[in-house]
């Protein structure tokens, strides 16, 4: 699958919901089947760590392995179906003006920051801290057990045929977005990434906007 730049005809004044998520903060909301979720990169090159759970059964969740394996490609773009650990379609990407999104880089955490950068980086804010706070406050039984390999929208993690994997400068820019239609009732969990130690946010984490349209 090559990158597919697909614009959306949906208008921002028709949304049923919109909210700006500042860098370093989580976002969690139920998206009903048929609704369309847009994540908008307001200022450019902002990684948006994202997980999905079935609203009906939280043990069913986005599965990175199944999603990339079934489409035969590690990047997400228009035409991608996000699959669950049960093999069911959760969402379909219907528009994308960035071109490709990461499935392998995962989320930063206090502990992984100690490994990747320096032991004293433990106290920098991280995506997993945002995820854990959101799950604790959502209060429906989801916890660290439910944190699996997430999507990084707008993040550029190229892999070479020799097997090298690197975090590179972003390929997104201000105003780019990705849009997906829910194929079941889902809970979306976002961490707007606070990472300052690699180029995933261009060393300057910025806000993103979440918009939702009815079917």
């Amino acid at each position, binding site marked *: *699958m*090559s990158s597919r730049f697909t614009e959306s005809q949906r208008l921002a004044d028709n949304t049923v919901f919109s909210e700006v998520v500042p860098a370093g903060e989580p976002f969690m909301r139920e998206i009903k089947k048929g609704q369309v979720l847009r994540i908008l990169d307001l200022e450019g090159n902002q990684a948006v760590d994202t997980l999905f759970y079935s609203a009906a059964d939280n*043990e*069913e969740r986005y*599965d*990175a*392995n*199944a999603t*990339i*394996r079934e489409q*035969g*490609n*590690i*990047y997400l773009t228009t035409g991608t179906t996000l699959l669950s*650990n049960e*093999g069911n379609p959760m969402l379909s990407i219907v528009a994308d003006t960035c071109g*490709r999104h990461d499935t*392998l*880089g*995962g*989320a930063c*955490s206090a*502990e*992984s920051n*100690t*490994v*990747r950068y*320096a*032991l004293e980086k433990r106290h920098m804010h991280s995506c997993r801290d945002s995820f854990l706070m959101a799950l604790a406050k959502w209060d429906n039984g989801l916890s*660290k*057990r*439910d*944190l*699996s*390999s997430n999507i990084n929208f707008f993040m550029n*993690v190229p*892999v*070479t*045929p020799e*097997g*090298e*994997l*690197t*975090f590179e400068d972003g390929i997104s820019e201000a105003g780019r977005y990705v849009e997906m239609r829910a194929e079941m009732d889902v809970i979306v969990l976002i961490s707007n990434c606070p990472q300052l130690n690699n180029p995933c946010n261009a060393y300057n984490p910025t806000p993103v906007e979440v918009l939702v349209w009815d079917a």
Partner: protein
Amino acid sequence: MSGTSGKGLDPKLVLWEEGVPGGAHWSGVIRRGNTLRVTDTNGGANVSMLFYNHEEKLERYNMADTLKGQHTVFLTKGNVCYSDMGRVLCSITEDTCGWHDTICGVSNASMVRRKYGEARYQEKHNDYYRNGYDSLLNEVGKYGLGKRDLVASLNLFSKVVVEENGNMKFQQGNSNAGDFVDLRFEMHTLVVLSTCQHPLDPEPAYNPGDINLTTWCSGAAGDDDPCRNSCSENQRAFINTERLFA
């Protein structure tokens, strides 16, 4: 640290040995300082494998941290497997195969039915067709774990190359009869595995390969250990790990 860094298999130090047929599932606890050799008996085997800290099973193998810490999409000699807590569960101290897949996950029931047809226990008895997902779920269930605890697994002996455009290509013939990989455990680890075929294996027949498991007392990583010193990220992950056992 105590230990005999880099020491190969000494028959006098073997603790146990066990064969696992193709399509089977297995689990067991391997202690810190012991090494598990997984051998592909006949060539073409696949071993879907997950690791959990035996003392706190919320801590588990983390694909993303393992890959980004070592700037690689596959694992081989010199690599380690990270937990989500910045520690090293195990190190790959020897590998005659050269590439172990980390990104494809496991087969499931509908995939196996689609690829190989139906073969139930009722008709086939113990030759019934198994799948990776149900096999891992079966094993983790023995420890009170379930679907929520199943995360991206390793696929030992399998190679999937990612092309420049992101396309994934399964490479046949990656592992031959007798190829092996040594996993030296740096933490007390619950190891869970399935010997079902790789989900992208194009082989049209249900024909999962047998493996052999051998565990010996190798000692934990020394200061001069090649896995510890293969990158600064691994050095820091070993520091985090050793603090747990300080």
